[in-house]
């Protein structure tokens, strides 16, 4: 919010008819409606009726993009994303000989995904998230199986209602699995909103993660993605101050939520494989 980055200054888009430079979007001026200004507590139900450690309902459909080798559409509450995998295919840039395959990833918010308009060109934040997904996938894909080849992963967010980054990692790994590319394990991630040991929220929605209520109360946001069968951490990000001992609580709570999500995802993947078998 408060940091303006050189690389994310608005570039004039020559392909579109843009509004005047000092135009303001209506949502900026509207007063944000917030149900309460008190910190959430474990005992209370959240505004959307969930308990503190309840995940939002998950919907998953694999293989929706028939042209891609692997794809998935994932919905968690109102957060919707789509991931597609093309590959392994011959490497486009033949600069270096490499005994391991390469992974390229592109992450993008659709212009209508958030309340405010997202530029069609990939901005700084999206490039960083692309790199995170790339690193996480490089850690699970058996790259030695396809030397001199590359895998292109594309993740697009259709609607952002909180918990996007770990969900993008999850979608990318499910899509790679759907493409029949050999992986060590699925990558499954969840978000946690941490206030103190007694006040945590697992899988916050958009309002809980970025809303005015969360900005006033401070606390920390915790994104984590794990490899459920190998019991290792694939990705971790924490923003906001916490004590060193609280880091352990965050990791444990997130871990348990990720395992629950992983069971759901494995079950859905198994069903989708059975469906494709039936069609054949």
């Amino acid at each position, binding site marked *: 919010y408060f940091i*303006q980055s050189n690389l994310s200054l608005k570039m004039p888009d020559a392909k579109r008819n843009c509004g005047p430079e000092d135009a303001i979007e209506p949502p900026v001026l509207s007063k944000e409606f917030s149900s309460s200004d008190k910190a959430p507590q474990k005992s209370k139900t959240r505004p959307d009726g969930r308990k503190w450690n309840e995940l939002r309902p998950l919907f998953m459909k694999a293989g929706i993009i028939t042209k891609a080798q692997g794809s998935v559409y994932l919905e968690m509450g109102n957060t919707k994303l789509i991931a597609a995998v093309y590959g392994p295919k011959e490497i486009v840039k033949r600069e270096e000989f490499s005994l391991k395959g390469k992974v390229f990833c592109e992450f993008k918010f659709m212009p209508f995904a958030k309340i405010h308009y997202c530029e069609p060109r990939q901005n700084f934040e999206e490039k960083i998230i692309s790199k995170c997904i790339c690193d996480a996938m490089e850690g699970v894909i058996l790259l030695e199986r396809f030397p001199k080849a590359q895998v292109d992963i594309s993740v697009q967010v259709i609607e952002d209602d909180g918990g996007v980054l770990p969900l993008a990692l999850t979608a990318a790994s499910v899509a790679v699995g759907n493409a029949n590319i050999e992986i060590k394990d699925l990558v499954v991630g969840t978000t946690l909103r941490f206030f103190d040991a007694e006040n945590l929220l697992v899988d916050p929605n958009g309002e809980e993660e970025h809303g005015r209520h969360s900005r006033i109360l401070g606390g920390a946001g915790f994104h984590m993605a794990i490899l459920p069968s190998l019991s290792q951490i694939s990705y971790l*990000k924490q923003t906001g101050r916490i004590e060193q001992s609280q880091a352990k609580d965050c990791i444990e709570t997130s871990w348990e939520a990720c395992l629950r999500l992983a069971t759901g995802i494995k079950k859905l993947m198994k069903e989708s494989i059975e469906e494709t078998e039936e069609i054949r």
Partner: protein
Amino acid sequence: MTSIRLSAAEQKYIIESAECDFRSDGRTCEDYRQIEIETRNLPNTNGSSRCKIGKTEVLVGVKAEVVDVDIHAPTQGRLNISVDCSATASPEFAGRGSETIEQEILSVLNLLYSSIDALNLEDLCIVKGESCWLLNIDVLYIQCGGNLFDAASIALKAALHSTTMPNVSVSGEGIEMELEISDDPYHVWKLKTSMCPICITLYQIGESFAADVSEEEEECSTGYVHVGVLSSGEVSAMEKSGAGNMEPDALLEMIEAAVRIGEHIHQQLDKNLQAECTTATL
């Protein structure tokens, strides 16, 4: 970073010696190379510093300007951090080669300074809802020798500590409001940097981890963690990156080590910056 070609034997040597807590230059896994800091070395800035850790040398300059407030945060000033790895630092940084590493360093610095209490942004507001100070922070790498993130964060804290902000007097109201910025070099105020974090980057090498790694050690690592540590010992931000998975116990150990190292560096840094301040005023 610069691509170092290591033979399998060299890699094995580095990994096994890290596991024995004895690195190729004689340091233990938690030791830093000698850190040199110099502040107020750039004359046309409000604050500046130079930090040298081993072969890595970074310059940070802070220039302040008066701008309109951001509509999302009308009572706060702003920071604009930019990172530049020049071609002098390494030949592969010529042209667009440095883009990825610059973005990564920028993302880590933004992560560290994105919380409202890292640097009290309310202090940077001049007139609520109208004008504020924008701090243009430029990080320039003169030489890269491993551990770029930590060097940048230490230099950044030193530069902000040395920053002197001119006093502004407001006269008139509404459209006729005028801001007069004093150019008296002694009529200045300083930023409060007690809550500025330092990034400690720990790389996972083999079964163990190391801080302040050289480029050769970086080649042999599988994954790394950036931990933002405050002088009070709290963790202000954390990010695990790199292709490689970590055991949760290993990660907790790394966080613990990072806090230990971070507190020590903060102590030494604050002591030296204070000493520099007092000699300057004398």
